[in-house]
Structure formats: C-alpha cells, structure tokens
C-alpha cells in the first residue's frame, strides 16, 4: 500500500566513516554503494571526504557530477562546520562567520546540494544575514537540532522567532532523530561492559534511562553531578562516571511536538546506532516516528546516519554498508515503498 507523502530517502556518507577513515573505501566506492543499496539521495560532509575543503577545484566538481551521473544519484545535502576558534588568540568576528558560511553556500551550489546542514551553534542573526545569498544560490540553510536540544530549547526558540519574522523558505531546521532515543543503545551499554564497568552500574544506567529516573540537570550545559555521584557511590571509577554521562546527553523528546515544527524542517538525519537483523533499530522507535513525519507533511529527505561504529570498533569488524542496507529496508517499509 502506498501512503500519500513526498518523503525521499538519502544517506549521509558519514555513515561509512569507518571504512573511509581506514581507506578501505574511496568516495567513489561509497557513491557506488548508494546505488547498489537503491538509495536515491547522497549527503556529504566535505570536511570529511573532500580533501582541501573549503577549496573546491573545477576538476573535483566535474568528477563529483560525473559520479552522480554514472551512478544515477542525486546530491541532497552538504554538512558545514564553523571553526570560529581557528585563529590563534581570538574568535571570528560576525563578518568572518558570515563570509565562511557564504563560501559554503557557493560550494553547496557547485555540488548540486539544495540544503546545507548548519552546525548547531550558529547564531540567528548570522543566518538572517545569509538569507539573500541562500536564496540567490538556491540553497536552504537548515540548522541542526541535535540531542540534548530539541525544538523547544532556548536557541531553537530564538531561531524560530527569526524564521517566523523573516519568512524565508531558505532558512530552517535539520532534525537529528537522535532526539528520540527511547532506550540506551545496546552497542553503548555492551561497550561499557567490555571496558570494565560493573554490571550493576550498566543495568542501573540502561534501566534508569528507559524509565526516565536517572538524575538529570534541569538546564542544558549545566554539569549533572547527580548521575556521576551515583555511579561513584555504586563503586564505579571516575572514568565510569564520565562515560555514564552519555545517558544524560541522550534524550527521548516528545515526538508529537515535532508536528508543529515540521513546516520549518527541511532535512532529517535518520540517526541510528544498531540495526537488528529483523530490520528494526534497537533504540529509536522509527515505527512511531516515520508515520508522524508523514502525518506532519514533511517533504524532504530522510537521510540515514549510522553512528554505531565508534562503539563496536574495539571488538568487532564494522560493517557500515550492511547497517545502512538494513536501515534503508526499514525506511522503505515505513514509507510504503515496498
């Protein structure tokens, strides 16, 4: 049954970072994989896989489009960073920040990407100043909402205020579905065990996270000493206590709230940590989330973003391609593409 919606599938090449880092696969290999896995859209982090970025040679741009043609894929999103601390002894001025992102806009246009994932800490007035450039190049600036923030966090609310005032279709959000971690990823708790954390502490963390009973800080950015103290009290080491904080940085936000903000959402990172053999994700309830995206009229890309490699690489061979394959099978099912 085909459900009426206009959501498209893509993959962030970030998902294959383990294989690329170890030079087991090249950028072209990865684009070829997207074709093999029947994923129409491609998202790229140029700082990760395009050496020399932000300089893009004409030869590279030509090669990039050649690959897109050869493998019949569509460039979708380019992920940018703003290294405002890169000059010794000072932070970038506002003008320098605007200039840096303006260059990204030109670059995204060269790569054929219609959306830029903007790093989370960019200020609203900077995006506002860039709206005309974004419009000129046909590139939407979509600031990423990432756990532990959500649509209703202070920075996001300041952005909303600006979006509503400016009313530009070239300014909005990217949503990372890591805001919907319902239970702690198993790949993380198992890693804790392998690293020597006591079983009682790991169980306390997993159980407390799921039930929402872990000591939490009420404000973002404030140290959550309650959880660390508890881990130490249970006989954990200082390192265990630091690791336990991962449970304080992950969140399960209210999916219903998303409906209100989807009109301002232009891109989605479909984050995942572990795809099981039955094509479900261990920690994020895609079965609940995708129908809401359809209901809310989201019409951008759902971009697979695998982030399990760092938790298993100590003990297992990472197979990002298989993980992405399973994730896309799940997305197809939930989008009614079967």
């Amino acid at each position, binding site marked *: 049954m085909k459900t009426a919606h206009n959501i498209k599938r893509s993959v962030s090449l970030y998902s294959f*970072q383990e294989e690329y*880092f170890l030079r087991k696969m090249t950028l072209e290999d990865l684009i070829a994989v997207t074709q093999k896995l029947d994923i129409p859209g491609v998202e790229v*982090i140029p700082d990760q*896989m395009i050496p020399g*970025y932000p300089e893009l040679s004409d030869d590279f741009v030509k090669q990039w489009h050649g690959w897109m043609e050869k493998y019949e894929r569509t460039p979708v999103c380019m992920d940018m960073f703003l*290294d405002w601390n*890169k000059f010794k002894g000072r932070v970038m001025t506002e003008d320098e920040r605007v200039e840096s992102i303006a260059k990204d806009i030109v670059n995204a246009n060269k790569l054929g990407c219609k959306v830029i994932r903007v790093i989370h*800490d960019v200020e609203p007035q900077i995006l506002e100043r860039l709206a005309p450039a974004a419009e000129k190049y046909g590139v939407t600036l979509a600031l990423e909402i990432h756990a532990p923030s959500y649509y209703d966090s202070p920075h996001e609310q300041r952005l909303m205020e600006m979006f509503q005032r400016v009313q530009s279709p070239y300014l909005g959000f990217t949503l990372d579905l890591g805001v919907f971690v319902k239970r702690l990823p198993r790949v993380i708790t198992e890693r804790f065990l392998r690293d020597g954390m006591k079983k009682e502490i790991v169980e306390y963390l997993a159980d407390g996270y799921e039930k929402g009973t872990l000591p939490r800080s009420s404000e973002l950015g404030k140290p959550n000493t309650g959880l660390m103290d508890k881990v130490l009290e249970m006989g954990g080491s200082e390192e265990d206590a630091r690791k336990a904080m991962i449970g304080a940085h992950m969140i399960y936000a209210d999916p219903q709230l998303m409906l209100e903000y989807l009109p301002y959402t232009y891109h989605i990172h479909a984050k995942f940590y572990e795809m099981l053999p039955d094509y479900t994700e261990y920690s994020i309830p895609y079965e609940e989330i995708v129908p809401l995206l359809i209901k809310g009229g989201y019409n951008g890309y759902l971009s697979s973003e695998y982030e399990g490699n*760092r938790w298993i690489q*100590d003990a297992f061979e990472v197979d990002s391609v298989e993980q992405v394959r399973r994730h896309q099978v799940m997305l197809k099912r939930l989008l009614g593409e079967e």
Partner: protein
Amino acid sequence: MFDKYMIVGEEFRNVKEGGRITGFQLGVRLPYYRGVVLSLVGDMELIVDGEKIPAEKMTVTVGGKTLPVTELENEPVAKWEFGEVGIVKVDKPGGLAPGEHTLELRQHMKISYVPGGFWGKDKKTLVLAE
C-alpha cells in the same frame, strides 16, 4: 571516535639524516570524524617508554608540509585530512634502541562546538622497524 587507530605502527622507525640517527618517527591519525585546519589540533602528548617527549622536540608532516608541533596553532589554512596518516618526528640523537617500545599518545582537539574540545588517546606496544 577513532582513538584505537591514532598510533600507526607501520611508520615507527628511527630517522637517519646525513648517515646519523637523529631521532625516531611514528605515524599519527587524528581521533576526529573530519579533517581540520592545523590550528585546531591541540596539545599532542607523546609518552615513549614512560618518558614524556617535550613538544618542542617534535615536528609533524601532513599534506606535504612539515611544521614544529609548537607552531600548529598558527596555521589556520593547511589541513590534516580525515584519516590522513601524519608523520611525527622526534628529535633524539641516537634514536631508540632496537626492539619493543610502549607508545602513549593523548591528542587534544579544539573543536569549537564541543565546550573545551575533547581528547583522544591511544597506547600501543610496537617493535621498532629495522
């Protein structure tokens, strides 16, 4: 994120210049998920057989460019690419003795959206290549 891959054993050997052993070298990858300009590469703490190597005794070669480790903070353009193996050379006349050595590396990454940045660390026992 990529801590276990930071120290690259294949590049671990004594360095000969003008017929004399002037020091030793090892391969290093950064623990971060993207390439960064060199000024974002923070303190590099290298401990060999329990002895900390002073920063001023080290140079790093990436992308065909060699800089003293103490000068990285002044380079906001040249990059250390994602997964790129940089060569760190340590000035130590006579080099290291043949055989096994324990190398520990702690690398600070000055990533602006992470308050205080973060550290990657790796420890490997390697045999010095002939």
